């Protein structure tokens, strides 16, 4: 079997004196689509933030292609796309300016920005300020990056929040294309994905009371 792209090694996370998860280990290979499940407060977002290197685990480490991510930070971040709860969209900038900046920040090309915005149904809103758009449209500005990204690992925290049904179908289609090309998608969602069970890996976090 090929080498794991991303692996969690004995991760422990403690928040407010509560153990969210203890000694959690798993490997993610190219072509995996992983859904992290669990009730509210089970630590899904904490896990994603730890995987992205935004938070530090209490114990254990995250490895990218066999190396601890803090050691190979630049290399890891060139191959990582993380979209969290907050969209990272500035209200004072237009949809196109936001997308351009986010792409440049991660070294992706800005050539087909209009097409990417068309993919998320924002044609005609390119020059509208993000603060004048709806929550779902703001989310779509952030998600438009997915179409331009060269990153192999996508970590998405609740990507479907505020997105309509047609939008979700388009996104799922894109995820399948991405994993077929040897990428991986790690996401949390309370919705059931319309993706065949044989392609979907699940990691379930339980709510612990201690």
């Amino acid at each position: 079997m090929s080498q794991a792209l991303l692996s969690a090694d004995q991760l422990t996370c403690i928040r407010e004196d509560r153990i969210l998860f203890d000694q959690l280990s798993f490997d993610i290979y190219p072509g995996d689509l992983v859904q992290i499940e669990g009730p509210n407060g089970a630590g899904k977002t904490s896990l994603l933030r730890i995987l992205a290197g935004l938070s530090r685990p209490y114990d254990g480490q995250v490895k990218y292609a066999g190396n601890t991510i803090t050691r190979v930070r630049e290399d890891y971040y060139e191959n990582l796309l993380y979209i969290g709860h907050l969209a990272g969209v500035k209200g004072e900038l237009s949809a196109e300016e936001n997308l351009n900046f986010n792409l440049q920040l991660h070294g992706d090309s800005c050539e087909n920005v209009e097409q990417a915005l068309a993919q998320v149904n924002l044609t005609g809103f390119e020059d509208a300020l993000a603060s004048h758009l709806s929550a779902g449209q703001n989310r779509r500005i952030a998600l438009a990056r997915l179409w331009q990204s060269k990153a192999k690992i996508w970590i998405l925290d609740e990507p479907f929040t505020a997105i309509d049904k047609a939008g979700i179908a388009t996104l799922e289609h894109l995820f399948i294309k991405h994993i077929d090309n040897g990428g991986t998608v790690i996401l949390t969602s309370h919705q059931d994905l319309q993706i065949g069970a044989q392609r979907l890996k699940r990691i379930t976090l339980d709510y612990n009371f201690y």
Partner: protein
Amino acid sequence: MNQSISYWQTFSNVLKRDLQVAIRNKGDIFNPLVFFVIVITLFPLGIGSESAILTRIAPGVIWVAALLSALLSLERLFKNDYNDGSLEQMLLSPQPLFIMVFAKVLAHWLLTGVPIIIIAPLLAVLLHMEESAYGALLATLVLGTPVLSLIGAIGVALTVGIKKGGVLLSLLVLPLYIPVLIFATGAIEAAALNMPYAGHLAIIAALLAGSMTLTPFAIGAALRVSTN
């Protein structure tokens, strides 16, 4: 592997974006400036218009007002980015964090420091400052206000995750501004007495050189800690 975007490009992208955001949000630029002007005009009203006293206190008043207005404007350096998630995206960029941080601080100085430098001579007239001290006033402001932005940014980066970090921020940052204040007012007073003030300026310049090279790393580290 992906060096198509150079460090310089990253720097100018972040700088351009921050200026653009500020220009569309005009209150951010004008509030600290108006604050600066009002604080200084309050002194002649409170103390009386006797020119001897005003001349004596002018350097201190202008510099203290500059410190406070810098402090007032600091919060927006990272707070908005933290609240809308763009700070997270910056932390996740493969580009070095200190370059982006430096661009953000430069944008902050251009928007708050430079207007103060431009308007300060006008307010010095109001306080009957000695004519020979104008050069020193401008020189200390040009060298000193970037130090205020750079050192203040460490404090903002440390408090960005706290809901009401404003008071804590001033407690953290104001003591660190003391050296700049002492040498800046010292230089202006020396100039008013027609004495050489190059030594004072050299010390402020050294503070600037030191903070320009070191603080971007400290700010970056502080941001990683406070978003943890």
